[in-house]
């Protein structure tokens, strides 16, 4: 039995649930945080969404049918929670989920937990101008180091589409960074 399967078994056992949940937090908290942070941009918002994500995981682990891996399932919850957050706050800080490019950069550069240099700001500007799909695929592949298969399961897009999207995004970055 692999590590995740053992963890799922313990999470579904009411007597071991709390202990297993603590282990789950230990293993996945950081990775999910960075995925969320790239979507909701600021640390404060990422913290809120991360908490909501784990509460949702805790509440619905008993209904987890294990059709996908635990990691993919949690990643999808985090992704959906982040999008829900953006949707909920679109009238406050964010203009629109589909059109975040300008507000994305403004919010990011004003965040106290951003101390990027010129190159990093340039990279952010390039990524912010990607389409929403390109942005997610590039970030999940490049920064979260997820396999195309897992990204495909999370975003429900075919692997081939993801590959072409990713390589197109890499090409754009390479060209623009060189300018």
């Amino acid at each position, binding site marked *: 039995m692999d590590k995740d399967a053992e963890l799922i078994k313990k999470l579904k056992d009411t007597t071991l649930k709390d202990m297993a949940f603590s282990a789950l937090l230990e293993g996945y*908290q950081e*990775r999910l945080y960075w995925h969320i*942070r790239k979507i909701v941009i600021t640390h404060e918002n990422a913290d809120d969404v991360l908490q909501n994500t784990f509460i949702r995981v805790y509440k619905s682990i008993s209904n987890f049918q294990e059709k996908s891996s635990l990691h993919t399932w949690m990643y999808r919850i985090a992704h959906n929670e982040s999008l829900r957050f953006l949707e909920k706050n679109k009238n406050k800080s964010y203009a629109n989920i589909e059109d975040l490019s300008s507000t994305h950069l403004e919010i990011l550069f004003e965040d106290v*937990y951003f101390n990027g240099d010129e190159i990093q*700001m340039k990279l952010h500007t390039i990524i912010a101008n990607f389409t929403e799909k390109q942005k997610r695929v590039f970030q999940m592949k490049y*920064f979260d180091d997820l396999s195309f298969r*897992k990204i495909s399961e999370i975003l429900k897009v075919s692997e081939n589409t993801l590959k072409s999207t990713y390589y197109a995004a890499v090409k754009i970055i390479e060209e623009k960074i060189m300018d």
Partner: protein
Amino acid sequence: MEKPPENKSKNTFLKEAFIIDISKHHTSYLGITVPEVYFEKSKVSILERVKSEEKNSKALEKKQLFFRISPKTKYAAVASFVFLFGLAVWLQNRFKKHALPNINMEMLSFTKDNLINSILVNDADFEAFADATLLNEIILKAESAERKMDNFFINSLFIEDSLMDIYTSESFIETIIL
């Protein structure tokens, strides 16, 4: 753009090397950081929030105990209640019928002592009693008197002249005065 050497050309997502470096990776490429010891603090606050959410949901579950009964049981409970209520109403009416005598308004109104009878009648039934008395006293009695008068005149046609005086004095008194 090159990836850090430890992450290059390998599927490292669940491997220790990448897990240790994920924050560094984001900081060095994207310039985004987190507060010091954030993940330790966050873990504690998530665990606390989960516990309080669990307490709240348990309290809510207790409050909603009735509504968590399965639909089948709910229907059976409602049907039993309706049946028992119906039975109670039926039994009550049945005993009421036995306890109270059924007063016949028609019979009461046909007796001579209308004033005494009116005392016996309930307030609720008084209107019915008054209608029955009116019908009896005015319409039926008037009709009967008219018929008697008709008979008196028809019979007088068949009586001989010599006996007319006797018939008139007897029947007239009986029919008209009495």
